[in-house]
């Protein structure tokens, strides 16, 4: 039990992840959930909490929550219900948040992640529960130039969030990051959430403390909850900061978990430190009780099983299958799977067409993904469809085109959207027949007698100098074929 920095201690981390569900409308009303609309334009009496307005459940959020729960191996109970969590805040219009308290929609799951400390092993991270709740609005404080205005945007009010609560099973910031990456991958892969941290559709709170070994006994430091981090990097850094801070504080004060209740801290990304947000004395009493405006929801086993049947293949299984089925490296399969279901489908379709998984994987990772990045587009908007890429790479595999010519053709297809054949014609690429090639090679050998002498002296590589010249005379000449023809003539 030693930390990377040498402390005789173990880091204990549990994460609470808020995932915004990808529904078209809010959790309890028909308002849009689109990000970035002008303030207070996506609101109605229900999400504003106006007197007399009543919530009505959005079934799409239930369906996505069931999918999410199944994706992290949770059980889905036969009944779930709604509770009110009461607190006063200006961006919480009703004075309570509709959430789930004792009967969450998902319970008791887990995620396997690669062990950052041992590439051959995995870590099992337990998931305590996942519950559905509505989001609150946003307060914007304008304190510039002596002003102290607060403006409230309620567009986000009522947006569906699934809060996924892990067990305190993570032992390092690297494990926390791996857990978040795997969670994000499953949520995006299954279309449950966009998980855009900049847009707030994935938010992370980390509970951190240390188990320190003293004279063979284990002492726990007080638990700290670091709230609302907006990048995986921030989560890693905040955890590392907390490890140092808590260890130093323990050395200084000797305070343990028995001396102090949980505190809440914020993360200052610029300063790289956490700071105290809520004093421990003000432990909140949310006065949870069942929301009388919403009936409990029955989730029949048939519904859960239908969702399971529709879930499709999970990223972990796809990774293994791609590696086996297309003969690519696990690392390459991982890169493709991490790009999401559309790119996986693109790869599979192109690889089937080309008959060469490795070549397809390498083209997609280099040529295709670079273009996507340069143009900031998704694979759905890519001008060359999977069939066309498959056809192109099939020509490379059969020797009809060399790699360099294929890249020219590919570039032309991207620019014009033409088919492989049309692009080849447009670029004036013709196949060179054997007699034509033999004539060309014989001319070159006649003009370069030294090559023939070197070849006969055992230097096979001598022909290499003629391949470039052949390409100059006829750009359509395939270098491999030129090499073969030259050798045949010299041996003949």
């Amino acid at each position, binding site marked *: 039990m030693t930390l990377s920095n040498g402390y005789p201690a173990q880091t204990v981390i549990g994460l609470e992840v808020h995932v915004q569900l990808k529904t078209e409308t809010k959790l309890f009303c028909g308002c849009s959930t689109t990000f970035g609309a002008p303030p207070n334009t996506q609101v109605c009496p229900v999400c504003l909490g106006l*007197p*007399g307005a009543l919530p009505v459940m959005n079934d799409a959020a239930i369906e996505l929550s069931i999918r999410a729960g199944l994706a992290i191996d949770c059980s889905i109970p036969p009944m779930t219900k709604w509770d009110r969590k009461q607190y006063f805040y*200006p961006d919480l*219009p*009703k004075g309570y948040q509709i959430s789930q308290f004792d009967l969450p929609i998902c319970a008791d799951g887990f995620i396997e992640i690669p062990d950052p400390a041992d590439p051959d092993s995995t870590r099992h991270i337990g998931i305590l529960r996942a519950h559905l709740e509505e989001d609150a609005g946003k307060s914007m404080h304008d304190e510039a130039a002596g002003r102290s205005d607060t403006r*409230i945007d309620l567009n986000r009010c009522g947006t569906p969030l699934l809060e996924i609560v892990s067990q305190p099973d993570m032992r390092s910031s690297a494990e926390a990051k791996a857990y978040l990456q795997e969670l994000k991958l499953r949520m995006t892969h299954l279309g449950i959430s966009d998980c855009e941290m900049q847009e707030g559709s994935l938010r992370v709170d980390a509970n951190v403390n240390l188990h320190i070994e003293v004279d063979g006994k284990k002492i726990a430091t007080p638990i700290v909850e670091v709230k609302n981090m907006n990048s995986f990097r921030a989560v890693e850094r905040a955890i590392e900061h907390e490890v140092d801070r808590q260890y130093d504080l323990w050395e200084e004060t000797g305070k343990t978990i028995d001396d102090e209740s949980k505190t809440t801290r914020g993360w200052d990304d610029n300063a790289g430190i956490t700071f105290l947000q809520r004093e421990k004395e003000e432990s909140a*009493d949310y*006065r949870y009780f069942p929301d009388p*405006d919403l009936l409990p929801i029955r989730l029949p086993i048939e519904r859960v099983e239908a969702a399971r049947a529709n879930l499709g293949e999970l990223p972990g299984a796809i990774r293994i299958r791609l590696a086996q089925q297309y003969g690519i490296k696990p690392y390459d399969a991982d890169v493709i799977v991490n790009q999401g279901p559309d790119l996986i489908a693109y790869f599979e379709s192109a690889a089937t067409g080309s008959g060469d998984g490795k070549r397809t994987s390498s083209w997609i990772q280099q040529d295709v993904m670079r273009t996507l990045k340069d143009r900031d587009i998704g694979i759905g908007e890519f001008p060359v469809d999977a069939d066309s890429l498959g056809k192109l790479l099939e020509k490379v595999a059969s020797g009809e085109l060399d790699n360099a010519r294929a890249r020219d053709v590919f570039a032309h297809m991207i620019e014009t959207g033409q088919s492989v054949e049309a692009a080849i014609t447009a670029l004036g690429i013709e196949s060179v027949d054997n007699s034509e090639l033999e004539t060309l090679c014989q001319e070159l050998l006649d003009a370069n007698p030294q090559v023939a002498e070197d070849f006969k002296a055992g230097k096979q590589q001598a022909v290499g100098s003629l391949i470039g010249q052949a390409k100059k005379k006829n750009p359509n000449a395939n270098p491999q074929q030129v090499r073969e023809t030259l050798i045949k003539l010299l041996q003949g």
Partner: protein
Amino acid sequence: MLDSALEILRLQSAGEATAVEIAGAALDAIEASQPTINAFTHVDREAALSAAAAVDAKRAAGGRLGPLAGVPVAVKDVLCTRDMPTTCSSRMLKNFRPPYDAGVVERLRAADAVIVGKTNMDEFAMGASTENSAFGVTRNPWDTTRIPGGSSGGAAACVAAGTVPLSIGTDTGGSIRQPAAMCGVTGLKPTYGRVSRYGLIAFASSLDQVGPIGWSVPDVALMMQTIAGYDARDSTSLNLDISHYTEVLSSHDLRGLKIGILRESMDRDGVDDSVRQATLDAADVFQSIGAEMVEIDLPHNDYWVPTYYVIAPCEASSNLSRYDGAHYGHRTSDLSDSDKLGPLVTTYCRSRAEGFGDEVKRRIMVGTYALSEGYADQYYSQALKVRRLIKGDYDAAFSQVDLLLGPVTPTPAFPLGQKVDDPIQMYLCDLFTVGANLAGVPAISLPAGLDASGLPVAVQLQAPVLEESRLLFAGAAFQSVTDHHKRRPS
């Protein structure tokens, strides 16, 4: 005085009166009664007259008219109306105009009813006397030194005063039946979920229900026919076909009907002799028209009021959190000395302190306490368990009888101010009514006589869930052989 909706419909179809004439008469009567009765918080003469004119025009054009065409209707000021203030008789919502109509209000408009205004009530429907109103008390038309009952005091008083034939009230623990009883009119609390709560400003969501008040059962049935039914915007709304409430009233033969009389509860201390006698007399009437009367008991009766006064304040404390001065409604203008708590918390505290009256504050505090950590199990969870027992009592009773007969209120209308400073006495006004709310069953208050000083006394019939038509059928039979409902305040 036009006191029957059915008569108003007949006059119009016979060409003897126009909707505008009827609305004008109602508005004049309201104006004349306001200084003494104060049943209304808002009256919009122009809007009412133009709605009536639209009905007349539609009739003249041969258009299809709704079932309440040209009938003046008053709406309790707890239901949202797009074109009128909706205040809950609270300073908190004094200037609040909702951007939408309640589901019930939509249905009234669709039925071509003429909404004349909003009626006074106990603030946020909390009270039994309509004395907790930011707009002054409402007085009982039978005796203006007395309360009209509450919280739908304005809704009952405006019908009793003969200004409108029908009004809409709400009933969380008896707030339709109790003022109807004290004002000598007929009031129905429907099955929980039978009428949409969309746009009803919540007091206690699991108990609140909207219902009609009128002089007689046929009028009440007519309005029930209009307002009942499924509303997808209310998750607790029942998605079931509604009965033909107006068609069940023709037969007045109660043979085969078994009515349980709740004798044990009416023999309690504090129940007025006039109330006990009226109940016994009503039992005789029901027997005389064929019903079989049996004595029955609801064993957990003693727990009704305590259970209610835990659950209702708990829900109220939550429902009323939204009135914080931040988004709408009353906001304090006094931020002096706010350094200690900060301007935000000071805004909350002072806005709520200034906006809410004493009874509302009392219930918010009781509810907050009963839901707080360490006490929720002792009070709220315990009350939920007792509520299940109370429901069980009703189920057991209705396995033996078709209807339950008993009193509505322990006493006739009491003098203004008598119980204002004694909340427990005030809460005991709900002794006979809260059971129906806790169990979700429908119940009707029927005028059943006058006491020695000429004040109305009433009886209550309760039925199994969704059996409003049984209540209306029995109630109409009762009124066909009695004339209590025809008495008017002088």
